[in-house]
């Protein structure tokens, strides 16, 4: 049920028209929006066609992350929401792809910088703890890195703790708004036509 390419292009163009109509849009912002419109048609569709593409060709489709960064985000997302006996995890739900797309169009450079720096921190911590970069560490070592970052989730202080909160919230939102998250994992039953509301009618005693 993903949007067709034409619909998606329509969205970008509508955004552009809106931006054009607004007096407050600066030249730089206009150019960014315009750039977004050019790139949009090259975006791979989630699902069917592209899944069989070789890894190299897929890498070209990343809009913000480098191939190495993308692989790391993909791995981190799967560590946060893994495939388990109940349902597929973040990797299957293409969470990294969605985050990449959103970061590429983010307003201003702050979120981009936070992610770029944050991923470097993950490697640094892994080097410190495991003596090797994150992607070269073992599964247990990777979990150890993430555990250290997650220590102060409710009150993050250090940059890596703050990055964990950002990372998890983006991963969680992307996963639980995906087809996999809504239908397979949470087995959501709503958004369906009902002749009668579900539950108990208390007007009948």
């Amino acid at each position: 049920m993903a949007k067709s390419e034409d619909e998606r292009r329509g969205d970008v163009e509508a955004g552009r028209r809106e931006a054009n109509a607004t007096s407050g849009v600066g030249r730089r912002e206009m150019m960014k929006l315009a750039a977004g419109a050019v790139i949009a048609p090259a975006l791979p569709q989630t699902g069917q066609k592209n899944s069989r593409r070789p890894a190299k060709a897929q890498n070209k489709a990343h809009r913000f992350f480098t191939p190495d960064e993308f692989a790391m985000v993909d791995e981190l997302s799967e560590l946060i929401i893994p495939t388990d006996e109940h349902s597929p995890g973040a990797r299957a739900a293409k969470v990294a792809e969605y985050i990449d797309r959103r970061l590429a169009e983010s307003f201003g450079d702050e979120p981009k910088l936070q992610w770029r720096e944050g991923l470097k921190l993950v490697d640094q911590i892994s080097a410190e703890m495991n003596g090797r970069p994150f992607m070269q560490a073992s599964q247990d070592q990777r979990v150890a890195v993430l555990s250290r970052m997650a220590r102060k989730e409710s009150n993050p202080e250090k940059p890596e703790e703050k990055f964990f909160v950002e990372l998890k919230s983006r991963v969680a939102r992307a996963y639980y708004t995906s087809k996999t998250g809504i239908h397979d994992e949470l087995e959501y039953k709503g958004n369906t036509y009902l002749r009668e509301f579900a539950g108990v009618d208390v007007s009948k005693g």
Partner: protein
Amino acid sequence: MQAAAPNIPNDRTVDLKKVYDAIVVGSGAAGGMAAYVLASAGMKTLLLEAGRRIDTTEELKSTEWPYEHPRRGEMPPDRHALTLNEYTFRKPPYAERLKANHAHSYVQGWGGSDYSKNIVVDEKDHPYTGTNYAWVRARCLGGKTNIWGRLALRLSDYDFKAASRDGYGEDWPIEYKDVEKYYDKVDLLLGISGVKENLPYLPDSIFQRPIRLNDPEVHLRNTLSKMGRTLTPYRAGVTTDGVKNKYRMRCYGRGACNRRAGGCDIHAAFDSPTGLIFPAFETGNLTIRTNATVSEVLVDTNTGKARGVAFVDTVTAKSYEAKAKVVVLAASTLESARLMLLSKSRLYPNGIGNSSGHVGHNFCEHVMGPNVTALVKDKDGAKRTLDDGRPGGFYIPRFRNLSERNPKFIRGYGFEGGSGVTMLPDSVFDTPGFGKDYKKGVRDYAGAMISLGGFGEVLPRYENYVDLDPDVKDRWGISVLRFHYKFGDNEKKMCEDMADAAQEMMEAAGFTEISLRRSLLTEGWSIHELGVARMGTDPKKSVLNQFQQSHDVKNLFVVDGSSHVNAACQNPTWTIMALAWRSCDYLADEFKKGNL
């Protein structure tokens, strides 16, 4: 399917040479009702709306899955929704120095916001100043009714005669029996869902098919009943059995009623365009001009009466005048007060209708904040059920200061709440950690929470007011409102009790408290601003009479929430419409008699 909207002629074709019988400023609950009643009574009526016309049938997409939307329902990246922190730590105008190209109020802040971004105003164009206040405005045909929360409650004599009961403030110049018939008319015309409870302090409506409760909610209802309190299914301003209106369908239990800044694209939930304005248009007596921001009520210096309004076309920025024999303000509580204050003339140096000096004063609303979420143990990890698709959960009417007198505060509060599974459950964001445990936690808790949030009456106080900022102007060069408004001691004490009571009820039901919020949310959070041009019998202490007619200018009416004498603790939309209907019946009658 519902019928398509009628073909309303282009704004530029509106005849501005003509003298209309009435001009209605604003098209929300109050303006829509005024247009409906006056046009139905045969009066040639011109409706002016500051915003544009938005086809909400197309715009709201309430059945769209998040993954069908390029940003999963979120706004484009150059738009920013103000956060609670920004309202707390910064001062208005909140959009000032903000990097984003567009700024919106907090109602755009959670998921689903992309669908209503064109309905709520861009704060950059519509600043205000003064004390902290989360002022949510919708400038478009239908105003906030396009996204309202739908809770449709009646007031009673506990509210209309509150001053006689506890000695604070003023009574309304009406009592329940004056407005009962009009509540009935609103129920029948627009449709309302609910269950009869026979409570003297929350009169029943003429209800259609009720919303059903899930097991934890039924359990809480039974628990509260033993405590002498009531939990009733959400009284939703939604037609569940259908109404005689080709633009609206009956609720079919689908759609994103839970989406923050909701809206109903089949118009089962009341909205002013389909419920009132389109039917009014079909009488042939209604002319509509959108993109018309009224800046002043014009005065005939010979008679002292209103002769029309001045407005700015927000597309061309050109100024125009429109003429009428009667002017009806329904621009929303604070905007109507702003308009009266802007309408200064030699005859009315303090603003039109403001000889009392009370315009802008006695500002009141509902205080929010105290909130408890609890775990329902036997739902933890339970098999998934269908609990969604309802226009609302439940309502717990006030139980304080009815027969007893609370020693700490006067007036009352009610709770809104609900339990059950939603599409994007809170457990996604509340469950700590990561990995399998996190994933299982989200899954197990997704349908296992029940929550209560309070809405309390904020007392009307003369010293809580708005006036015009002498320096700051909006995008169209119109002076903006400056707030002088703070919660008082009564609200703070009431909120302490609210949090205690919510905890007490959860405990009594055997639910395990997960989170408790005791603190007050920013002023304005309830989006129920009221008062500022109150009704009354004494022209020295009030702005309007019992028919929302200016004491000073007999052909000027103000039919929105600004006329309310106190806020009560019930959501105001149904009362706004019942009162507007009553006043416009009177207006049409007086007009025919030549008394205006």
